[in-house]
């Protein structure tokens, strides 16, 4: 068993159907789940849907959780699946809306606004959102959750080498797309 004492008790209580235990488990992990959904989708409403879907799945399949893996890993897998499911649905329904919105945002950005930190944030997040889902997910797990390569590999069900390769490609793409921010961001650091 990999679970810590308190968490194991919570899971056991959840498996008995204790609603208070569900609430406690939710409070323990809600920010983590919502943050991954938000950073992956870039949309608060979509992040709410992802978080809701993830917790409903967790509560419905908590009976099957035997404690062989860490609960965080189990939860990360659920939220990753919810994110990818959501992405597939969005792609089916609105294939061109993302590109259209990105074009509008790019036109609205003025040189004076670019010096603002919020604009940098928008630019960085927009660049991340344009990555393919598999590259975006490793970036989110790495920078939002601070997971190590091995942990990301365990969550995604692939090798650590695959994770490193995806991170490498994602960094190169982001570096190319955000190259105009390099002097500004580097200047702040110096």
């Amino acid at each position: 068993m990999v679970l810590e004492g308190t968490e194991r008790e919570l899971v056991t209580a959840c498996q008995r159907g204790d609603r208070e235990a569900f609430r406690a488990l939710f409070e323990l992990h809600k920010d983590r789940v919502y943050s991954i959904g938000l950073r992956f989708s870039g949309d608060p409403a979509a992040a709410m849907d992802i978080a809701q879907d993830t917790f409903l799945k967790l509560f419905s399949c908590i009976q099957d959780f035997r404690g062989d893996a860490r609960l965080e890993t189990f939860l990360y897998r659920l939220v990753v699946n919810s994110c990818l499911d959501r992405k597939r649905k969005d792609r089916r329904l609105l294939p061109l809306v993302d590109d259209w919105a990105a074009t509008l945002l790019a036109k609205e950005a003025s040189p004076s606004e670019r010096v603002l930190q919020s604009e940098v944030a928008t630019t960085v997040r927009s660049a991340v959102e344009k990555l393919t889902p598999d590259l975006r997910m490793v970036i989110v797990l790495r920078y939002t959750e601070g997971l190590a390569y091995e942990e990301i590999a365990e969550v995604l069900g692939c090798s650590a080498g695959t994770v490193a390769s995806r991170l490498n490609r994602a960094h190169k793409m982001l570096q190319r797309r955000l190259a105009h921010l390099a002097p500004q961001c580097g200047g702040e650091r110096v």
Partner: protein
Amino acid sequence: MSEFDGPRWLRDELKRHLAPVHTPELLWERIQAGSARQRRVAVNWARWPVAAILTVGAALGSYWLPSEGRVTQPAIEAASATDSPMPTAEWDLRCAPPSGRASFYRANLALRRGHPLRLTASVSEDGSNGCQTCHVRGLTQHHL
């Protein structure tokens, strides 16, 4: 393992702008509402098999119950076959005009009573109207 993590400024920006956030308060209410909706959907889906089973049961019942009633039918048919000199297979059961139906009923009723009568009105010697055959056989009461 590739350790290419990009330049430091990029990693710092990613850490800063992809940092975790706090969850809105209404998420728990949404989850509870979603859980209730999920249960409702599950119940709705459970209704379909129940409805299908009931429909099939009703169909089988409507087939089997008349069949159960037909158990006594052979005995009735055998009895009527012995009564009737006319083979039932030759009966013309197509719809007939009212006058034809009336004569058919009269003829068959008479046949079933064992009097294959020809229904011809006659006037007897004493002047009373009646069935000629009945008069011949000495019957005082008309059997129709």
